[in-house]
């Protein structure tokens, strides 16, 4: 009946899906998704659903995707019907559609389409949209799990994507790398520095993956930083990482940290402040496994902070802290109180906290800890109280000063009303007594007295064992206990019976006069016991202790066998050997190797070649001031030798000053830029000027000039070269340092937007970097006019961080008066329709006196252009089809001899504000030059022409 109704409903849904109304179809799909969510089977609707895969309605389409991904595996043939739709969508101009098509296509687990998937992934990996490339990285893992034979091809794609400079892609591709080929560490070398530098800007989930990967990488590539500090290491004897061999190396040469190693540590440090607990944990484990020991303390606070988070987070973090605290007590000792147990904590949290407190205990704090433990013992949570008693036992063995105190405390607990507490105390006391039994016969006597009231088998067994083991210390009581036990033998638990047999045997050997009969009685009882263990034990004991003809030599040694001194048990932390697993991993949490766990390798004794990480191309500039960053790198590495914390601080300070505009925004055009940069590598050969190449290796221009001409027209090309969108004012470090005494130098950010017009260019215009940035600065405000304040500006030719249609400008303000100038800012009233991105006022407002100066910036027209990349053919074509453009041609007489018959140099650019194309070609014909400028902006065209003329005429020798 039910089944019938269910079928009916599905019929109903089928009808809805086949109707013409979108809304009905959508309703049907929603219900189907509801079915899937409940775990009901809706697979027979597949044919009806798959028809809607090409629907125009986005939501309907998405729901169909959900369905497809769920059931395609079961209905492979029908699923193939949908493939062509996705193939078409892969070519869609909308990146969202391309990406989602690839997502679904790769999620359909149908082996037949593997080649199609492979093709799609390869194509998407070179897509212009970083979002699509990210999806491609995800698809790699899916294809790999579908068909591991594709590994080699996939590795090629991974290799390509690893080079990607987009922060969006980085996390996903590293994930794919970890899954497909985690052993191909060689793929990382060239991307190592880039990944380190990108890390802060990658999304949080990607950060976790990258950090874990880099941890493994670093352990194979750098030498151990721990040797030196092994000497200061608090538990030196535990420095198990150092093998003998390594020690020798240490003696021969001092340790210098690889700058790349330092780079990783430095770039991950800010992530300790992340709100994502997984990121914080990842950085912590990275520091734990990679950082010199004395730098480790910075992770403590962050880890303790995580304890404020959800219960589940606490659980994992506490486990990791427990492992850490065994090796390095000092790290967490100041935070001991954070591990105090609250009555509201969950039991597993309580036990972990207890574990950590026990690990942290030392001579100095033991009294505080024991006082705290006293309240725990009284807890209503009896399992926790029992765990506390264990912990007290551990403290007592580890710290000999308090052994007696602990023992007395535990003896007091023997009169506790709760059975579990008493039992646990007995067990712990037994372990403690083993260390020094002779002094404690009182305690043994006391326990014998309590014996009648204790019912927990483990505790009874423990007491009996103690009696037997130390029967010589309690010669009067032991036989009496045995007498009582003989009476109750049959009613005891197995574990107790075994100990009774044990006790009997031991007493027989030491005091056979009193106990011979008792022993025989017990052995007889044991002989017919139901449990075979007890029967076996009884038989064994009988043969051993009762001499007869058959028992040969062994019984002579019975005493030595049974009464042999036994080593005291070592009370250890359960986390003792957890450090064999990398911290923060699932395996560590479970304390057993999870599938897919990648072991962290030991440090290499000798560092592998460092140069493998060298990259020919300068690292991409993610911050407007990445040059300063590089300086810091050097600075950082040079100070490594001393590696004092003060040098660290100074580095970070200078860094923050320079970067006081933040990375976040500065990379606004970064994804666009990076793609052009990768192109640039191919076209780099076009430029031959070596000097320039040294300065900026990735240059993009469409000039095919012989060097001589280059030199002559260089200036001119340079003048017109770049898009300045936006004005960034900054001061280099050295400058800052040099002029500190007399001048007030400030970093200021200002942007001018010259005019905002919508962006409509037909050719795809990709911006390239400037060839040359002139150092000359222009005066904005003279110190006389400015009453002491002088200002200079310079076009930095860097992309503007505040907007695409802005030009960046570096403003240097200096104070040549003897008073402090305060509250320097750009006033609101800017005329001329220029849009200026104001900087924050400098200095605080204290004075009342205000001055206002009006200044104006007059950029050379070239500063408002942005060079773009264009093939020569395109250039000619654009020049030809400029029906809307005006062109200017002029012949300029040059009065210098030129030795080449015809050389044409070309420059392509666009205006910053509107993006209109500007094409300039200069043809040098002896002795004249023909300048052709094509642009739709008449004014810019004529101004350019004028400047070209002057420049060409003046540049002649």
């Amino acid at each position, binding site marked *: 009946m039910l089944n019938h109704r269910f079928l009916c409903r599905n019929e109903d849904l089928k009808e809805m899906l086949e109707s013409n109304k979108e809304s009905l179809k959508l309703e049907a799909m929603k219900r189907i998704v509801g079915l899937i969510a409940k*775990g009901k089977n809706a697979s027979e609707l597949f044919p009806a659903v798959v028809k809607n895969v090409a629907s125009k309605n986005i939501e309907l389409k998405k729901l169909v995707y959900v369905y497809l991904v769920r059931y395609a595996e079961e209905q492979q043939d029908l699923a193939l019907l949908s493939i062509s739709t996705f193939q078409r969508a892969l070519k869609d101009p909308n990146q969202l559609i391309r990406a989602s098509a690839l997502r679904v296509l790769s999620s359909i687990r149908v082996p037949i389409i593997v080649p199609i998937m492979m093709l799609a992934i390869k194509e998407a990996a070179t897509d212009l949209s970083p979002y699509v490339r990210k999806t491609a990285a995800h698809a790699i893992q899916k294809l790999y799990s579908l068909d591991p034979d594709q590994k080699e091809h996939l590795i090629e794609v991974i290799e390509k994507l690893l080079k990607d400079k987009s922060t969006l892609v980085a996390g*996903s591709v590293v994930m794919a790398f970890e899954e497909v080929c985690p052993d191909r560490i060689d793929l990382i070398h060239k991307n190592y520095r880039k990944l380190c530098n990108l890390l802060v800007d990658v999304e949080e989930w990607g950060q976790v993956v990258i950090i874990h990967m880099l941890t493994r990488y670093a352990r194979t590539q750098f030498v151990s930083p721990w040797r030196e500090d092994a000497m200061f290491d608090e538990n030196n004897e535990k420095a198990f990482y150092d093998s003998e061999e390594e020690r020798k190396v240490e003696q021969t040469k001092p340790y210098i940290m690889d700058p790349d190693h330092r780079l990783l540590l430095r770039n991950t440090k800010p992530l300790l402040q992340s709100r994502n607990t997984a990121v914080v944990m990842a950085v912590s484990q990275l520091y734990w496994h990679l950082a010199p020991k004395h730098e480790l303390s910075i992770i403590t606070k962050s880890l303790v902070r995580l304890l404020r988070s959800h219960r589940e987070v606490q659980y994992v973090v506490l486990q990791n802290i427990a492992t850490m605290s065994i090796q390095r007590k000092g790290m967490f000792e100041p935070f001991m109180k954070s591990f105090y147990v609250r009555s509201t904590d969950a039991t597993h949290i309580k036990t972990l906290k207890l574990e950590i407190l026990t690990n942290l205990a030392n001579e100095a704090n033991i009294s505080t800890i024991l006082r705290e433990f006293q309240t725990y013992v009284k807890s209503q949570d009896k399992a926790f109280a029992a765990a506390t008693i264990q912990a007290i036992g551990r403290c007592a063995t580890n710290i000999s000063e308090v052994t007696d105190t602990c023992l007395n405390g535990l003896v007091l607990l023997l009169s506790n009303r709760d059975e579990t507490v008493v039992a646990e105390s007995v067990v712990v006391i037994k372990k403690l007594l083993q260390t020094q039994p002779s002094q404690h016969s009182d305690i043994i006597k006391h326990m014998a007295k309590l014996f009648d009231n204790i019912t927990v088998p483990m505790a009874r067994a423990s007491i009996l064992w103690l009696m037997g083991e130390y029967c010589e210390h309690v010669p009067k009581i032991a036989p009496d206990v045995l007498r009582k036990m003989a009476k109750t033998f049959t009613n005891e638990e197995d574990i107790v019976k075994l100990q009774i047999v044990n006790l009997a045997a031991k007493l027989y050997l030491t005091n056979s006069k009193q106990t011979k009969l008792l022993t025989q009685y017990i052995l007889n009882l044991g002989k017919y016991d139901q449990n075979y263990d007890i029967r076996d034990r009884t038989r064994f004991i009988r043969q051993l202790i009762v001499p007869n003809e058959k028992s040969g030599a062994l019984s002579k040694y019975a005493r030595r066998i049974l009464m042999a001194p036994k080593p005291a048990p070592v009370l250890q932390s359960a986390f003792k050997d957890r450090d064999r697993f990398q911290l923060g991993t699932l395996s560590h949490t479970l304390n057993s190797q999870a599938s897919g766990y990648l072991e962290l390798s030991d440090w290499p004794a000798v560092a592998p070649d460092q140069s493998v990480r060298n990259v020919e191309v300068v690292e991409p500039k993610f911050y407007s001031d990445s040059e300063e960053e590089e300086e810091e790198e050097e600075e950082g590495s040079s100070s490594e030798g001393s590696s004092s914390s003060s040098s660290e601080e100074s580095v970070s300070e200078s860094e923050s000053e320079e970067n*006081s505009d933040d990375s976040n925004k500065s990379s606004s055009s970064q994804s666009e830029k990076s793609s052009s940069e990768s192109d640039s590598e191919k076209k780099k050969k076009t430029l031959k000027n070596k000097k320039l190449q040294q300065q900026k290796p990735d240059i993009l221009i469409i000039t095919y000039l012989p060097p001589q001409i280059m030199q002559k027209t260089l200036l001119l090309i340079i003048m017109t070269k770049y898009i300045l969108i936006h004005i960034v004012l900054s001061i280099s470090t050295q400058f800052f340092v040099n002029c500190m005494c007399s001048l007030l130098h400030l970093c200021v950010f200002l942007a001018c937007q010259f005019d905002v017009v919508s962006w409509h260019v037909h050719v795809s215009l990709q911006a390239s970097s400037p060839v040359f940035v002139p150092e000359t600065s222009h005066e904005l405000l003279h110190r006389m006019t400015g009453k002491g304040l002088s200002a200079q500006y310079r076009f930095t030719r860097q992309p503007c961080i505040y907007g695409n249609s802005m030009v960046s400008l570096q403003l240097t303000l200096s104070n040549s008066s003897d008073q402090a100038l305060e509250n320097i800012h750009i006033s609101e009233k800017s005329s001329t329709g220029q849009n200026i991105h104001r900087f924050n006022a400098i200095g605080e407002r204290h004075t009342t006196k205000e001055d206002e100066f009006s200044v104006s910036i007059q950029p050379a027209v070239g500063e408002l252009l942005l060079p773009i990349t264009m093939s020569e053919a395109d250039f000619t074509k654009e020049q030809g089809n400029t029906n809307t453009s005006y062109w200017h041609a002029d012949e300029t007489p040059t009065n210098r001899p030129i030795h080449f018959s015809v050389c044409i140099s070309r420059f392509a650019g666009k205006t910053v504000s509107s993006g209109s194309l500007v094409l300039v070609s200069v043809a040098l014909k002896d002795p004249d030059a023909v300048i052709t400028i094509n642009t739709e902006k008449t004014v810019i065209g004529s101004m350019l022409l004028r400047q070209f003329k002057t420049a060409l005429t003046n540049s002649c020798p």
Partner: protein
Amino acid sequence: MPNHPVPVPSSVLAALKNKTIHLSAAKMIHSLFLVNASGDIFLEKHWKSVVSRSVCDYFFEALERATEPENVPPVIPTPHHYLINVLRHRIYFVAVIQSEVPPLFVIEFLHRVVDTFQDYFGVCTEAAIKDNVVVVYELLEEMLDNGFPLATESNILKELIKPPTILRTVVNTITGSTNVGEQLPTGQLSVVPWRRTGVKYTNNEAYFDVIEEIDAIIDKSGSTITAEIQGVIDACVKLTGMPDLTLSFMNPRLLDDVSFHPCVRFKRWEAERILSFIPPDGNFRLLSYHVSSQNLVAIPVYVKHNISFREGSSQGRFELTLGPKQTMGKAVESVLVSSQLPRGVLNANLNPSQGTYTFDPVTKLLSWDVGKINPQKLPSLKGSMSLQAGASKPDENPTINIQFKIQQLAISGLKVNRLDMYGEKYKPFKGIKYMTKAGKFQVRT
């Protein structure tokens, strides 16, 4: 005692490692099951091939073994999978993992899922999830791709999938239009992924709540065993365009350990102790901080208690008086006292001087809703407890948990200096509110 593996020379290990072939590589979240308080699976979602829901049997076993719902271990190994669960709003979110993955990664993600649901549906209950199962599915689809987190920022998700409102539901049913966005969220590709573009408000406002919580353990005699202050700044920012805000403190040195929303520029903070950020749109947690432990923590309330049981008597005495201590002249409000009485207590017959109290004879939980503390007339709760006849005297006294609120006070003394906005021209309305709450505030008796 487990045997410790004998250390193997590193060279041998390295040689072994090179030969290891990773057959099963790392994979993230495989499936998700939602389990309600009565132990029923009411939603399942698979990102890869389907995992049978019978895998949850291992979870149910653990659930049965646990005495309290909170005691279920967060990570449960099963023969072929690993189950990682979080418990929020009495729903277990059970993620199925197939191989090695940082457990916090999964836990953090699951909590993010819960936060998103809460953000979308106002509450995260079984009913709400069942009512919005399609949106839930769409969200989960966007949040994970192949088990790897894709879009978890609430601002991005809201552009992809519009949160359900009554109006939109009605319109959608009539017109068949969708609540799925067609464009890639602009934030996704920009460097400010947490903020959507094109935000417009007629009233531009930015509110910041500085909320501090005192975690403390007070011992029997009233002295403080441990006390620390943890704070957060929650923001509700409704500003047009791309505002760039800076928030500065009068006394930033108080903040010892901070964690930021990704929008905060870390370097600015390092250098100038200023929070500079382009805020997400709407509600978000800007900052959480810890006040350095060197500072003495002011304890705003004190408790005088006398809870005693006599041997042999079936009566126990219960006396509790609350009073304000260091409150900087502010009133202590919304005071709630709760205590887990020993198992031997059958009933409590108490008399509150103000507020109401309840005692649950099954869970033995006593809670007293005090309200506001009036310094002139201190609230007290006095009376007797009846014990099980013949039972021996409980050997421990209950701990007392206290909740309270103090408006307009940040107990650490933290003060916001000023809030400035750059990048936009309008004048926003700005508001800052301070509040102190009890965190885990326990008094041992």
